[in-house]
């Protein structure tokens, strides 16, 4: 018999390394000869989209189209440390560093333009990579023309910035501290499942997610993270287990180690809670890790709702479900 159930889970995730560990990101932004604006960062884009996020941030601050932004590929000899792509930290850390570097560059654009135009800052306006005086918009300089003039003065149009927030080391006896993590992301998921009581197979029908991410720099990217993380959570809940017996992995391949496929992917409905109240760029927080955390318990709770049995040892395989159902019938 097929039985449906609904379960929920609400989670928190303190992101950044935190705990007093020196955690920072350095980025620089410069006007390039090629007609582009170059960002130097070592932030690894593992598919999550940090390069897109910092492109949007730089474009926003510098008032240019995103196509104008070029990012140098990560290279120890051409970039400074941006910390790791982990701990859900890149949007927050490198995002802030790029925002600040872009603001630094913008300030210098105003500074040098005010010399060129013999004006003060309030008389200047910037649009699409051009700077001009309000009273004479026809006489304008592009960022690149300005950069040439700055070069003649023996300087260059670039700025470097870093983001290095303080966190506290926890007390070793109690784990207490004033600021352990830079911020927390919160996620609630509600999951609908259908359990086949004859086979023990669980199908995930719907996943409703509400995520407090402060501000989505790119809402589609955030949704993508949530959907990917959820599918990973479905794997953890229902099928994934590297079986290691006496130190030997019994299933070191994707025949023996199952991960969800597109056929296991549910219908997603996602809403983003954006209070813009975080210290991240434009109020953003990270979503990378929190995207996966609520899924497993929400599924476990939905399975309980459907069939009245609870499995305490992951993954919740059909075998475990059938065994638990059998025991439940026996105990009745």
């Amino acid at each position, binding site marked *: 018999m097929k039985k449906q159930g609904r379960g929920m*889970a*609400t*989670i*928190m995730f303190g992101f950044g390394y935190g705990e007093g560990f020196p955690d920072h990101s350095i980025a620089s932004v410069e006007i390039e000869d090629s007609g582009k604006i170059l960002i130097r960062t070592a932030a*690894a884009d593992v598919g999550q989209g940090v390069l897109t996020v910092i*492109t949007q941030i730089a474009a926003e601050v510098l008032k240019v189209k995103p196509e104008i932004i070029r990012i140098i590929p990560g290279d120890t000899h051409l970039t400074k440390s941006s910390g790791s*792509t982990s701990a859900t930290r890149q949007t927050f850390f490198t995002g802030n560093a790029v925002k600040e570097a872009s603001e630094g560059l913008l300030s210098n654009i105003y500074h040098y333009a005010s010399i060129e135009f013999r004006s003060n800052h309030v008389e200047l306006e910037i649009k699409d990579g051009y700077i001009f005086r309000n009273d004479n918009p026809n006489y304008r300089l592009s960022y690149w023309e300005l950069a040439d003039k700055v070069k003649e003065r023996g300087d260059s149009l670039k700025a470097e910035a870093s983001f290095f927030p303080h966190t506290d080391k926890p007390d070793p006896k109690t784990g207490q501290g004033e600021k*352990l993590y830079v911020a927390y992301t919160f996620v609630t998921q509600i999951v609908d499942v259908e359990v086949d009581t004859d086979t023990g197979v669980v199908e995930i029908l719907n996943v409703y997610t509400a995520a407090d991410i402060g501000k989505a720099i790119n809402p589609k*990217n955030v949704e993508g993270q949530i959907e990917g993380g959820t599918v990973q959570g479905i794997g953890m809940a229902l099928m994934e287990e590297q079986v290691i017996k006496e130190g030997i992995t019994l299933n070191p391949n994707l025949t023996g180690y199952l991960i969800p496929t597109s056929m296991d992917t549910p219908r997603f409905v996602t809403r983003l809670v954006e209070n813009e*109240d975080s210290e991240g760029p434009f109020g953003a927080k990270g979503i990378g890790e929190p995207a996966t955390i609520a899924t497993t318990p929400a599924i476990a709770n939905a399975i309980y709702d459907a069939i009245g049995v609870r499995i305490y040892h992951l993954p919740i395989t059909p075998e475990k479900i059938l065994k638990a159902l059998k025991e439940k019938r026996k105990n009745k």
Partner: protein
Amino acid sequence: MKKMPKRYVGKNIFKVDAQDKVTGKAQYSDDIYFDDMLYLKIKRATYPHAYLRRIDISKAQKIPGVVKIITAADIPEVKNFGLIIKDQPVLIGIGRKMRYMGDALAIVIAESKEIASKAVKLIEVEVEKLEVISDPLRAMEKDAPLIHQDSNILATHYLEKGDVKKGFTQADVIVENEYKTSFLDQVPLQIEAGIGVFDPETEIIKLWAATQWLHDTQADVAQSLGLPKEKIRIIQPVIGGAFGKKEDISVHIHLALAAIATKRPVKFSYTREESMIAQSKRHPFIIQMKTGVTKKGYLTACQVEVIGDTGAYASSGLAVVHKGMYHCTGPYNVDNVKGVAHTVYTNNTYCGAMRGFGATQMAFAYESQMDILSHKLEIDPVQFRLQNAYNHGSSTPNGQILTHSVGVKETIKEAADMTGWKEGR
């Protein structure tokens, strides 16, 4: 507060790397090719816990096309590596211990992958077997053999806020359960792979190999090889997923050694099997959790004990396990919290970072507890969560007062709203 409208932030612009990826233009590590390139394979441990007594590479060396085989005897100056603790050997030497099936015994460099693989099989190894410790509970016993020099309990962390005893006396309902999670592989699409090139002029070793932490990987490779940091140049190819698995060193040091030894470009790509056996896992946790609540449904106390199996090497294990504990209450106000977390060495594949870093395992426990309690109290699970959830000014298990961006209640309300959740469903 009304925010200024934005042109690009908050907009769904296309991912900047999407076009290169879908057209096949993007260069991943394994796509990089040099004409005179050599291929590397590793002879790995033959037993999960054993002393290496003899290694014979003579037969392997005779195969035409084998260019060089490196064993620990060739690199006495090379040091251990590791993310937090330098406890991982680059190669296991004679008289040294292999601690899991991923430990490297020899580096084979050949003209082709096939030749290298064939040579690996011809390396003969004699070992002195030791007790294999696969269960962290066994590892914690007093009479268990030590996997490293010191205790098998790599680290113990504590958490204490308020008075947990008092908290449980205030509770009308107490629920205690044990939760267990499994070893998980991060299964990024891209398996560990890289190219190493030694430039004799500058004496710089160039590595094209993915890493989640460019400059830290560079530092670890450099310290292991005893070279200045600037002699190791890592260039990030396009990365095909990581999820924590590319935080640890994988191909990097072996490639650097091979490039120095042969003065030719060397490529090393793991197989999926090798990746699963040799590279980090998500920690299996054993979580004992006790939660107390008043009959009106307010949480009063949470006590937790965590045992995290970090396998043969520390990696980021000690950070993962206690970070899990630090999240033990979930986003709920609990005045009285007590926890202890042990990170334990075993002879299993070492565990490191994976999406959620311990907090993922912990959420399975605390959110199961929340569900169990809501059933026991017959309180709607949405209402139960709402009335306990953090506000501005709430205090986490670490006593951190939340001053910014505490939208947890909104997430509960929004999720419930999407489903048309009614009390009692």
